[in-house]
């Protein structure tokens, strides 16, 4: 079954001056920039810039590494040629102190302004504790000038029980001229924490990165470790993982559809979707023993077998649930008032979605066909019968319809996954005791928000040199800022809900 393990990563090193060129050519040739970050290297050597390219045709992964010049903390920015690198480069500066010369809008993306100048948590050999009495970092909001322009600051603490984030609207009357999104309030130092945690103990931390994407994060971590160690997962475990992932997608999409209905004041369907989300979480509980499906997916396989009796019972409920969901979603899609309310609101044009590399349902609503499950031909999706959803219009309605289609597809995938008995099967492969030295492993997963990446790089002793996480929200927050431009202030919550982004996954 070694043919079912992920293909190895192609690893290449280039001089730092060639980085922008290599990335731009790679993307021009049909690859996408999965993530870009930096890492430490051997004692005293300069930091190394790291970029992961994903081939959308073959599904192959390529890691490009470019060591910094000794004694020089600046490099020439790639954002001008590869727009989707804009937040990656800002994040690299925050965490490693490397400055991209020529970045069009360089400012902090994640670190809190109360943290001292010159504090770069991932660059130092041992991070110093933040001191509040040093000179604080300033945050430079984009100012919109002109007669009658005013600003509305919203958050970081919001009226609902939701995560913290600050939105700065510059408005003219009831129209948003510019929205600046400021995040980082949920920063918990996860990457640094994971790097100094013994790798066997990482899974509980990894799956807690974003509470609503437990399965996605656990799976991305497991795939990264399996690629590092060259371990193949039993087919039954791969099927159970996919089932968990699809249940998470169903629960989250239905929850957000309920939120969309609530935001347009359509409270009947909102209450119905809220109940159905609970039912989807119930499916997860029966499959994994926990409603958010934690402690189920682990490197090497899954922790809990599925009894034949339980398989039949889940399958029966999946079939009934799919019909009930179709009835519920008709309340939304067959109501002209609701459809009209979402149409032509919060449009992201396909060209912008491509330039900024939007992922997941938001990307697919704006003409980006990329779906990790299909592009990387991951088992068991390569043998199942399904097609990714797609649309071109890029408005709130398109994002809602994509989610509806994806819920239906996920029910269908669950049906296919659970329709054959899984008797006497292996669910866990034993892992080696140590990680290989100087190796790299990447876990790329189509979580419910889109492409989620965990990247693990080991040092000469087999210790974790770098553990990088890229949540789909990291790509899509820019999409929300684009969608809000020139919309009504009162329509922003609707746009926001249609993206349904994670703060904790983004802030790490």
């Amino acid at each position: 079954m070694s043919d079912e393990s992920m293909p190895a990563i192609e690893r290449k090193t280039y001089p730092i001056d060639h980085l922008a060129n290599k990335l731009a050519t790679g993307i021009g040739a049909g690859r996408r920039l999965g993530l870009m970050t930096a890492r430490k290297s051997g004692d005293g050597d300069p930091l190394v810039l790291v970029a992961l390219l994903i081939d959308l045709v073959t599904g192959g992964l390529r890691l490009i590494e470019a060591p910094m010049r000794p004694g020089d903390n600046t490099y020439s920015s790639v954002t001008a040629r590869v727009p989707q690198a804009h937040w990656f480069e800002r994040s690299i500066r925050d965490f490693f102190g490397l400055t991209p010369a020529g970045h069009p809008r360089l400012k902090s993306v994640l670190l809190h302004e109360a943290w001292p100048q010159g504090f770069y948590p991932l660059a130092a050999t041992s991070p110093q504790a933040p001191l509040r009495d040093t000179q604080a970092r300033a945050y430079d909001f984009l100012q919109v000038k002109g007669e009658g322009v005013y600003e509305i600051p919203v958050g970081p603490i919001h009226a609902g029980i939701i995560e913290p984030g600050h939105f700065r609207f510059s408005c003219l009357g009831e129209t948003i001229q510019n929205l600046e999104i400021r995040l980082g309030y949920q920063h918990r130092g996860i990457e640094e924490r994971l790097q100094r945690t013994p790798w066997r103990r990482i899974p509980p931390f990894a799956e807690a990165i974003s509470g609503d994407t437990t399965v996605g994060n656990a799976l991305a971590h497991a795939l990264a470790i399996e690629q590092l160690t060259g371990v193949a997962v039993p087919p039954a475990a791969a099927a159970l993982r996919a089932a968990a992932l699809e249940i998470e997608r169903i629960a989250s999409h239905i929850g957000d559809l309920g939120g969309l209905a609530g935001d347009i004041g359509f409270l009947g369907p909102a209450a119905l979707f809220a109940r159905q989300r609970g039912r989807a979480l119930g499916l997860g509980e029966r499959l994994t023993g926990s409603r958010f499906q934690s402690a189920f997916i682990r490197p090497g396989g899954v922790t809990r077998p599925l009894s034949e009796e339980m398989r039949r019972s889940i399958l029966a409920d999946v079939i009934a649930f799919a019909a009930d969901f179709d009835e519920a979603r008709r309340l939304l899609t067959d109501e002209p008032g609701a459809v009209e309310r979402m149409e032509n609101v919060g449009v992201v044009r396909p060209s912008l979605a491509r330039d900024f590399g939007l992922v997941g349902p938001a990307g697919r609503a704006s003409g980006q066909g990329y779906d990790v499950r299909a592009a990387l031909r991951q088992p068991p999706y390569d043998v199942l019968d399904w097609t990714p959803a797609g649309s071109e219009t890029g408005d709130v309605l398109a994002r809602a319809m994509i989610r509806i289609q994806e819920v239906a597809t996920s029910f269908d995938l669950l049906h296919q996954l659970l329709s054959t008995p899984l008797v006497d099967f292996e669910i866990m492969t034993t892992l080696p005791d140590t990680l290989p030295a100087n190796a790299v492993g990447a876990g790329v997963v189509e979580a419910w928000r889109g492409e989620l990446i965990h990247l693990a790089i080991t040092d000469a002793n087999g210790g974790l040199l770098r553990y990088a996480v890229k949540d789909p929200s990291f790509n899509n927050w820019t999409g929300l800022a684009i969608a809000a431009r020139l919309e009504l202030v009162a329509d922003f919550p609707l746009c926001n809900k249609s993206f349904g982004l994670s703060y904790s996954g983004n802030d790490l």
Partner: protein
Amino acid sequence: MIAVFWLFVYLIHIAVLPLLFIGLVRWLKARLQGRQGPSLYQPFWDFAKMLGKGETISETATGAFRIAPLASLASVATVSLMIPWAGVPSPIAGDLVLAVYLLAAGKFCTSLAALDTGSSFGAIGASREAAISIQAEPALLLGLGALAVHAHDSRFAAFLTPSGGEHIVILAVLAGAAAWMCAMAELSRMPIDDPTTHLELTMVHEAMILENSGRNLALIEYTVALKTTLLLGLVVQIVLLAVPLRSIAVHYIVSILLLAATAAGLAISETVMVKLSWRRVPNMLSYAIGASALACLLVAMRG
């Protein structure tokens, strides 16, 4: 003695009905949406709870912020003594123009208080409330005006007394429809605004009172409840013009039942309707103005 008795009955209605009405709307809404929902009497417990709580007041707020809820309550309470909204004769024979502009004065106080706190949400809410009011006000005034001209008397007690007359059914339907739409706009209810939302950016009325807490908030919540029953009671009385009831007891019972029916109407509209986009609000209010204008035309044509 009889006058004192009726005044007493009237005051009991003012004290009890508003919060009970809000409780009924919420209870019905919960049932319609498949939820158990809070008790019918929850608004009373909330009111008592808020009265006993301390207040947090913005540093930039002046005396206007403290006085506004009281001024607003005074204006609405005065109007509630003028309109026989519960089917019981009102103690004051108020004039319709006075009533409409007393309500506007109350709204002015609330808007002033919202601006006073310096919160951007308060300012947004105040600006939206004003924008909606200037569209709803002419519709309400024209609709009631048509009834007043029809009765040759601008006092509520007079023109809301069923007296029959030519085309009274059409007149009552047109004026009633206009009054209902204006009430939804004035009360920030669906489809203009969703009163249950927590999204500050979409709020109208709720955005203005985000800074209020404790006793101040209790007063505002009661004022809103009183205004809700008052305006919907007015709609009921307009509709009842079309079906004159002989006995005052029957009229009273039917009025209360119809008031409960408007609660059901609110609950249904807030379950099955979609909130209008901000750009569409003038469209809906143009229907209200249209209905009022037709009512005026009808009265004018008849001479």
